[in-house]
């Protein structure tokens, strides 16, 4: 068996970005030690030393060497644990890889910030953000249809890069459903995504590491209060 080195993951149970790394490691069958941070309340010295630039989780420590930024870590994992028997996370073909990266970047730059924004926003702004989220989900529903090569996932028969990027925010989506009285992944509006989300949550690499709904819902309320308090305390824009 190839020597895989010592793998540690500095993370936090509720973080969708940390979840991405856990799923990737699970797909590759790589055992790792999970180091839990007490965010947002404190940051360990190890975290501050391992990610001095951003001071954020996740950080993968491979034989003590830190890799930061969730999608960069996922690509790293895919490249290091790449032998014949292991499932690939990114597709082989450069064009398909570009499509996966494009949508992953869309999720991180547009979809997720809009979703997160609805937490601290009020009324009109919240409505506008929600519309953005719905339109983003529409684009992804469409993309699923276009990318589809058979199988339950964007990646085909097994979970791939885009599945990981989007699937990591499913737990939070369910929390928003509860908080806003909507159903984001409504099967009448987004049948492909609704079916996909069930398959993702049930998948072996995901099942054990998906945050529990009630715990996440409670925690989300704590974060929302902090966001609202920060907004109220912030100086008005000049």
């Amino acid at each position, binding site marked *: 068996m190839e020597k895989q080195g010592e793998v540690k993951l500095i993370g936090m149970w509720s973080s969708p970005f940390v979840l991405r790394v856990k799923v990737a490691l699970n797909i590759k069958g790589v055992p790792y030690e999970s180091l839990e941070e007490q965010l947002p309340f404190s940051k360990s010295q190890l975290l501050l030393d391992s990610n001095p*630039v951003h001071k954020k989780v996740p950080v993968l420590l*491979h034989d003590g*060497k830190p*890799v*930061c*930024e969730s999608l*960069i*870590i996922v*690509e*790293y994992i895919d*490249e*290091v644990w790449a032998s014949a028997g292991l499932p690939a996370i990114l597709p082989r073909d*450069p*064009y398909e*890889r*570009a499509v996966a*990266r*494009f949508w992953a*970047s*869309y999720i991180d730059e547009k979809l997720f910030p809009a979703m997160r924004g609805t937490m601290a926003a009020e009324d009109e702004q919240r409505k506008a953000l929600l519309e953005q989220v719905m339109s983003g989900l529409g*684009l992804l529903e469409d993309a699923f249809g276009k990318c589809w090569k058979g199988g339950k996932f964007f990646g085909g028969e097994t979970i791939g890069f885009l599945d990981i990027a989007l699937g990591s925010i499913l737990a939070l989506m369910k929390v928003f459903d509860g908080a806003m009285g909507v159903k984001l992944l409504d099967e009448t509006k987004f049948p492909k995504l609704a079916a996909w989300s069930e398959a993702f949550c049930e998948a072996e690499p995901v099942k054990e590491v998906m945050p529990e709904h009630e715990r996440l819902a409670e925690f989300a309320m704590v974060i929302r209060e902090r966001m609202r308090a920060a907004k109220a305390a912030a100086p008005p824009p*000049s």
Partner: protein
Amino acid sequence: MAKEVKLLGFWASAYVVRVQIALNFKGIEYDYVEEDLKKKSELLLQSNPVYRQVPVLVHAGKPIPESMVILEYIEEAWPEKPLLPQDPYQRAMARFWARFAEEKCLPSGVKYFTTKGEDQLKAKEELVENLKILEGALQGKKFFAGETAGMVDIVAGWLPFWIRRMEGLFGDKVVEEDNLPHLNAWFQDYLSLPFVREKLPPPEKVCADLRGLLASLEPN
């Protein structure tokens, strides 16, 4: 005869310029299509329905939007003359710094450009802070990738050209020998690379373009 690779672009866009630089580095032949951003072509709207922006690379009819995605695509579709290192850890580090340049330095550059007075002073401080962090990634090397330029150099490559234009416009100094010696040296070294120089837009034209942008930001 039409080439297999097409680039939809806009002459003043830093995002487009860096794709041109990467294509030039790899020696890839392509047809360049200048877009009128006030009247976008059908091809652009169809190729990038999500953002409707340049650059878009079209390779054998398949569109790839988003400059960072395009750069990785170019690297993988034309693997000779690599822009990224072979070692996975070094690749992760290169991607990290490319992302830092893109997600921190670029927005602070935009903030510096679009603000005035007190706000601009604050924006300049933030920009210089981010550039100091980026400078750390040079680690005494000539380029971010070592002796020759690579992905991080190309991604951060808008800095040497556009920061100098802004400095000229505002009569200001952001990156100099005094405060950012290594980055200052890298500015010169990067701009002197032939495959970069060949793809830079004319400086005076860019200054005029920036002046126009500033004017359009003025409240009516």
